[in-house]
């Protein structure tokens, strides 16, 4: 999740028109009516996330490579964390950060493997995780055979393939300005899971519907025992619920619990399955537990306040995130604590509308 302002950011209305196809737009408009002003703020954040932020100067960014387990590495730069998985069949790259960082990402990959990049996986559609798709895919090549290769020649194998959930692709093709076709996912799926055996490693991709967005994937490298979470888990900020792109707080909490269902720690809750977050430091199950607890507690508080009929201002006055603000809060940037509270409030209100108090029916009996 990038915090930088995008000079290329279009007005909210324009972005809304281009982010959504017609049918989705109707649903979005309906949701916006429910969400009100808070929805507008979240939409702005979502639009900001969707861009590539090409105007930023990345010259000073230095990548940090962390070996996670076996041949799985975490590469930290300026966008979302990148996972690099190497082996005799080639390289898989999960998330590609911002476009201007592609050269540095490729240099980092080359320090880890001289095998071709075969696969890119996008955990979701945001530009800080997909910006390098085009350059990194073009630096790789895929395997293809049969008549198709005879028909189109080397072009059939000229780039790495890009996996994403279909919802992510649907969002990406609606971006304005449009992404080049070479930056778009080439292999999508619409069901709950996609499996792949690569470098002898069973790799499972689990779709998490309506969480950070509506096209999020958790990537589990089963033998290395590593989970790449995309922005379904971070160590640096409150979860960004991109409501404009299908994100919900309840779905986000479900995704966190799914991560916990996948991870297995040692007998003292440390290590075991390692977790590469969308942003922040390398983690394990216990770090996800702390984060899940925080998000659930804040959601539960606001849900209860909504149930009691409180307004948004009243909820904010209760400071439902006070205990977590020094750790995760932000007063500025694209995703503030206030926006986090607002999106939960609006979604809790939509899910649990306060009961309408009917006027008392006049008694048929008269007091005599």
């Amino acid at each position: 999740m990038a915090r930088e302002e995008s000079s290329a950011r279009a007005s909210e209305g324009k972005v809304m028109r281009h982010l959504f196809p017609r049918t989705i737009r109707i649903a979005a408009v309906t949701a916006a009516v429910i969400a009100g002003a808070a929805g507008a703020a979240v939409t702005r954040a979502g639009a900001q996330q969707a861009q590539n932020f090409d105007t930023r100067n990345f010259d000073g960014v230095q990548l940090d490579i962390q070996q996670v387990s076996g041949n799985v590495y975490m590469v930290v730069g300026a966008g979302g964390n990148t996972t690099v998985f190497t082996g005799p069949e080639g390289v898989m790259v999960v998330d590609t950060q911002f476009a201007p960082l592609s050269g540095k990402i490729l240099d980092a990959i080359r320090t880890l493997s001289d095998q071709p990049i075969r696969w890119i996986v996008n955990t979701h559609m945001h530009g800080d995780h997909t910006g390098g798709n085009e350059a990194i895919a073009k630096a790789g090549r895929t395997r293809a055979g049969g008549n198709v290769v005879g028909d189109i020649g080397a072009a059939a194998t000229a780039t790495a393939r890009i996996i994403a959930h279909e919802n992510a692709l649907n969002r990406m093709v609606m971006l304005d300005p449009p992404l080049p076709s070479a930056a778009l996912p080439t292999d999508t799926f619409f069901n709950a899971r996609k499996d792949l055996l690569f470098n002898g490693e069973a790799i499972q991709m689990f779709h998490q519907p309506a969480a950070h967005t509506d096209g999020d994937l958790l990537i589990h490298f089963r033998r290395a025992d590593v989970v790449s979470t995309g922005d379904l888990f971070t160590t640096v900020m409150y979860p960004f619920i991109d409501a404009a792109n299908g994100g919900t707080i309840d779905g986000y909490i479900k995704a966190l619990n799914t991560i916990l269902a996948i991870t297995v720690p040692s007998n003292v809750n440390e290590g075991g399955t390692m977790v590469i977050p969308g942003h922040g430091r390398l983690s394990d199950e216990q770090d996800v537990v702390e984060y899940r607890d925080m998000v659930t507690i804040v959601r539960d508080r606001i849900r209860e306040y909504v149930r009691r009929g409180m307004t948004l201002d009243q909820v904010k006055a209760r400071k439902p995130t006070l205990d977590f603000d020094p750790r995760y809060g932000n007063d500025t940037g694209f995703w503030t604590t206030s926006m986090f509270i607002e999106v939960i409030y609006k979604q809790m209100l939509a899910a649990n509308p306060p009961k309408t108090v009917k006027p008392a029916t006049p008694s048929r009996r008269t007091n005599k």
Partner: protein
Amino acid sequence: MTRTGLCAAALAVLALGAGASPAAAQVELSGVWQPRYHEDLPERIPGPELRDYLGLPINDSARQFGDSWDPSRITLPEEQCRVHVSPYILRGPLNLRIWVEKDPKTQEVLAIKMYSSTYEQTRTLWMDGRPHPGPNAPHTWMGFSTGRWDGDMLIVETSHLKQGWIRRNGIAMSDRATYTEYLVLNGDMLTHIGVLVDPVFLTEPLVRSQDFIRAQRDLPAQTWLWVCEPVVEIATQTEGDVPAYLPGEHPFKGEFETKHHLPEFAARGGAETMYPEFKERIREWLVKNPRPAPAKGK
């Protein structure tokens, strides 16, 4: 003086004393150590009472964290084997073994190791001058520690800690905390003083001390083990539930201060409650709010 004030004074004395010894005369800490609990016993052995934050330099965020903490949280399977972080683990019941690891070719000290029987935690205090890892490295219960000798005093700096407890009633230590320790040997007594800095939950450093006595014999093997296997304890608990109290609605609000006849402003803690001058505020409050006479027959 409060316990914290005593600790600060002790630290100053220890630092002076340690500085008088030649650097080469490094003491031997290897052995089996057992804690003494004369300091802060109620907090360390029976366990702290709910909403007792007295003597802790906490901020409002830490208070709300503690006020919301429902002890049922530790019934969750994913919380049952939660380890005490290194700034807390030496305060509980444990057997402690310390030994030195040396480079076999040079006999230079590479590291001092500490094994706590509680949660079977092995801690490495690197003595070879290596730097701490960068910000993207994982955090652990024991953290990453480097040590150096200042005369006869071992000074240890720890970073990369997981979130843990400052007090075991919901007062949390964040994963951004750092910890500095001072270990001093006096005969067969080892004094350990820890200074915790936490930019998330503390307004000032928290200083605490513990003492250990060298054991003359080793302990049976099984006393060094801690086997933890999480299980579902509450059949009706829904997966993903996180027990917590709403802020301001703690069911035992007021219990601690009523039981001990203390003002609420003392129970709520804060840096002021660490210092000796705070006794005067308590005294003034007691003048206005005298302890009720015990009922007849009791």
